């Protein structure tokens, strides 16, 4: 392994890693927020809206991420939406993730026993309070594990952003490989970076889960 290769390309790889983390964090947190709003609207909004959300969820889940990205990046300008690769990448990431997040939250809502909500109504708590004080805090229990899991899946989906020239990790790795005619080393480094991201995410997920299920532990 040639060390000077990594000295030369190290900064580019690191910057690629940084861009990957940025796109991943902003994209998936954005997707989480949008997904949460969708789940709330689906549950508490009018019926017609529920149908629209259902259709949205099915369409986005039914198409590959790369196609969505292409449509947004290359098709956007036709409707006056001109985006930089990074903007298009992050925006499509948000759109792509939102229905999965929304489904996780939707099943999280359903996991709260109806009796608990009835008990809350019986003592006169308002629907808003029931959401804030009874439903949301408990939703963390069934949703933390699937959310962590989906965050992990999304770490690797960021690689697709390279097709619209977002200078993320895969893009930089491919550049290095093409310019130096090495393949094993750059892709080993790439794997290492993703691995760090995955391990880190699952570590955080476990901490959060331990925290939010504390009250269920029998002592």
């Amino acid at each position, binding site marked *: 392994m040639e060390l000077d290769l990594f000295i030369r390309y190290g900064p580019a790889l690191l910057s690629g890693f940084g861009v990957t983390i940025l796109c991943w964090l902003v994209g998936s947190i954005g997707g989480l927020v949008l997904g949460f709003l969708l789940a709330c609207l689906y549950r508490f909004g009018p019926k017609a809206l529920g149908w629209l959300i259902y259709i949205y969820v099915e369409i986005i889940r039914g198409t590959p991420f790369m196609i969505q990205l292409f449509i947004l990046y290359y098709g956007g300008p036709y409707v006056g939406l001109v985006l930089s690769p990074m903007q298009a990448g992050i925006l499509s990431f948000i759109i792509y993730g939102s229905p999965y997040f929304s489904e996780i939250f939707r099943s999280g809502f359903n996991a709260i026993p109806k009796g608990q909500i009835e008990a809350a109504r019986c003592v*006169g708590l308002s629907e808003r309070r029931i959401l804030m004080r*009874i439903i949301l805090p408990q939703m963390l229990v069934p949703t933390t594990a699937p959310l962590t899991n989906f965050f992990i899946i999304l770490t690797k989906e960021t690689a697709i952003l390279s097709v619209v020239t977002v200078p993320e990790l895969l893009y930089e790795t491919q550049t290095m490989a093409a310019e130096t005619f090495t393949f094993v080393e750059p892709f080993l480094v790439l794997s290492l970076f993703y691995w760090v991201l995955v391990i880190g995410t699952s570590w955080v997920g476990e901490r959060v889960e331990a925290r939010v299920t504390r*009250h269920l532990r029998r002592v």
Partner: protein
Amino acid sequence: MGDNLTDQPIIQVRNMSKYFDEFEALRDVTLDVHRSEVLCLIGPSGSGKSTLLRCLNFLEAYDGGEVLLEGELIGWKSAGASPRKALSGEALRRQRQHIGMVFQQFNLWPHLTALENVAEALIHVKGLGKKQAHEKARAALAKVNLSDKEKNYPANLSGGQQQRVAIARAIAMEPSVMLFDEPTSALDPELVGEVLSVMKEMANEGMTMVVVTHEMGFAAHVADRVAFLDSGRLVTCVPPAEIFGQVPEDPRVRAFLQTYRERNVV
């Protein structure tokens, strides 16, 4: 005439009916619950006991007739209109504060401690400060003999203790009537007694209670009247002696009690 106000039943059910789609769950139920009275509802499974109870605090919207709480129509804006219009959420919540309810499955909020379960509505419905609410919640927990468990989460309470916390949660709101839906049916036999004795104490202190139960001993000894439901109809509502002390006249009541006697013999 002056007595009218105090003589008025706390709950008046007038020709109430309830449908689930086409299915008639309750038909033409008329029933009064008086102040400080303990009324037990008994009857076969599926006869509509829970439905009747849940109509009293509008957890189920009854269709026909009226349910009055201290003279005020529950849930609907007016009994006459057709179709009926439901009260605003705000108005319904105000009514419900006067009706406590205890469920078969306890329905405590598992992410809150015993104390927090009891204090929640004191803070967020009654608007008490945290300190005052906790004081009140402690008093309620003391009433159900659980002072030492206030910091426990429901997962670390026995079924009997959970049910007593649920009772404390309801009585802390100082309701004028308490509804119980088979409060001991989900409990191990050795835990039934502690819950029944708390309920007995409440009855002795003059709480108005409507209790759906399969505990015939409780019905026989604590109830002022026992109502028997069958297929959504109120068959009879009489003092317990008339049901348990002699052979009941109505063949449905007779058959129902017979199954209990047989089970107890074994």
